[in-house]
């Protein structure tokens, strides 16, 4: 599904990622870990084209995303839930969803169907359609950010620390949605800091250190390698 090879990227003269490789398969949750400043968010942004790749390939199926203009990336099947959610805070819940649908299915019937599907997945949003996104609670904002990304009907879902700052019930709700998406065959790439989450549902773990690949774990290697994983993260 997603295959990144030799990716070097950064901001202006500053190189953040050096020769990074990563694979995320359909129907799997791949967790990207690393200490602060390791380059996890930059990698997510590079996949979205928001940080320009200086070299390397970011292939989603046959498409090299690195060669596309950034606004064409979501249309290729990549949904992005950024760190801090970054909703269009002055717009209503309905308008945020409308923006998400913009890069998704084109015909009105499919759009309506997708919108209804999202409201079924996150019933709380249905009650707040005309409320400004900035006035929602943290958990509701995370639901909206996830719904907005899923409106694209993505093959690959990028989630950058989606549970950061949320209460346990909301963390569980987000976890359930992720598992549901995995079961529907989406490739989920998740940036996560919580080791317990990784032990719970990760199919693969990839650790970044100082913008380089440090170590990769398959599902079978995660539990036995927990001590090494903790050492990488310094916890």
């Amino acid at each position, binding site marked *: 599904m997603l295959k990144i090879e030799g990716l070097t990227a950064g901001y202006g003269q500053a190189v953040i990622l050096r020769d990074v490789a990563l694979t995320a398969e359909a129907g799997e949750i791949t967790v990207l870990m690393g200490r602060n400043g390791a380059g996890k968010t930059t990698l997510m942004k590079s996949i*979205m*084209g*928001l940080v320009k790749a200086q070299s390397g390939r970011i292939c989603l199926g046959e498409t090299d995303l690195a060669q596309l*203009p*950034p*606004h*064409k*990336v*979501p*249309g290729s099947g990549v949904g*992005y839930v*950024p760190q801090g959610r*970054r909703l*269009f*805070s*002055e*717009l209503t819940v309905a*308008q945020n969803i*409308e*923006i*998400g649908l*913009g*890069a998704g299915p084109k015909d009105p019937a499919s759009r309506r169907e997708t919108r209804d599907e999202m409201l079924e997945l996150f019933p709380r949003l249905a009650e707040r359609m005309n409320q400004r996104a900035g006035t929602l609670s943290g958990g509701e904002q995370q639901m909206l950010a996830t719904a*907005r990304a899923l409106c*694209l009907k993505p093959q690959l879902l990028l989630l950058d620390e989606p549970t950061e700052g949320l209460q346990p019930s909301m963390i569980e709700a987000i976890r359930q949605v992720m598992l549901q998406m995995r079961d529907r065959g989406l490739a989920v790439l998740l940036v996560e800091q919580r080791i317990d989450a990784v032990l719970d549902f990760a199919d693969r773990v990839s650790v970044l250190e100082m913008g380089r690949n440090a170590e990769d774990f398959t599902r079978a290697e995660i539990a036995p390698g927990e001590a090494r994983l903790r050492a990488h993260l310094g916890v």
Partner: protein
Amino acid sequence: MDFGPYLMLAMLEGAVLAAVLALMASGLSLVFGVMRVVNVAHGEFYMLGAVMAWVVTQFMAGLGGGAAVNFIAAAVLAPLIVGTIAAAADITILKRLDYDPERVIVATIGVLYIIQQASLMGYGPDAKPVIAPFNSRIALPWFEFGEEGFQIYFPWGLSTTSYKLFVIVAAVVLLFALRLFMTRSRAGLIMRATQLDGEMATAFGIPVERVYAIVFGAGAALAALAGVLIVPIQQAHYLMGGDALLLSFIVVIIGGLGSLAGTVVAAVIIGMSDGIISVFFTPTLAKIIATLAVALVLVFRPQGLFGVKSR
């Protein structure tokens, strides 16, 4: 004429200025709101609109068109031409500067002089009139409580023209349409999303640079439309953009940069006060007071009357 009718006359003149100013400043505010850049060439797009109105009406008159048809052609074509020129300037200049706010100010100063001097070369140094599509004089009533009780009468000299009233109504309709466009249409939603977070807009498939080109063109087209509306009252001249730019900046700073509602309210305040002070005192005093008002706003409420305080 008594003070009351005289004040009403001054307010009508002010309302015409407010209407034109609101349209022009809305363009400036739209560009800043969405793109976060200050367009110093905005006054020249206003001037270009007026000049284009003259060019189009001359061309149409050559084809034998009547004043009304010529004016409608100018009102449609001049904003389209000016908007296209501005969008081209955005793509060829601002986009290459990555919309960096400081460099855009310098670049648009360059655009200002290019447009101004090109107009001087092509259009000439003289002010030229455009005939209003209709311009009948309308006597206005006043009232008094005399010995015979409440009386309505028509004082000598208290009148306006149908065209001036049309300018006020047209500006109100256009600004209302602009608000509806921004709040109710999908294109408006895309512009607002781009304004709120350009990077996230890109992450949801919005071609931000294309949106910027359209917004820059639309902002210039609004200024051009203001130029077309004013030219039957004021004549087109290649230096007319300077004062208009100053007043537009005053309006958007008082109203709050990027706030359309604030821009309209500030345009009414500045336009009306300019009209009234100009009639009772001098136009120079009106400009001094407006500039002083900007200074006070910048000191005591830097975000403007309707602007959001930046964190």
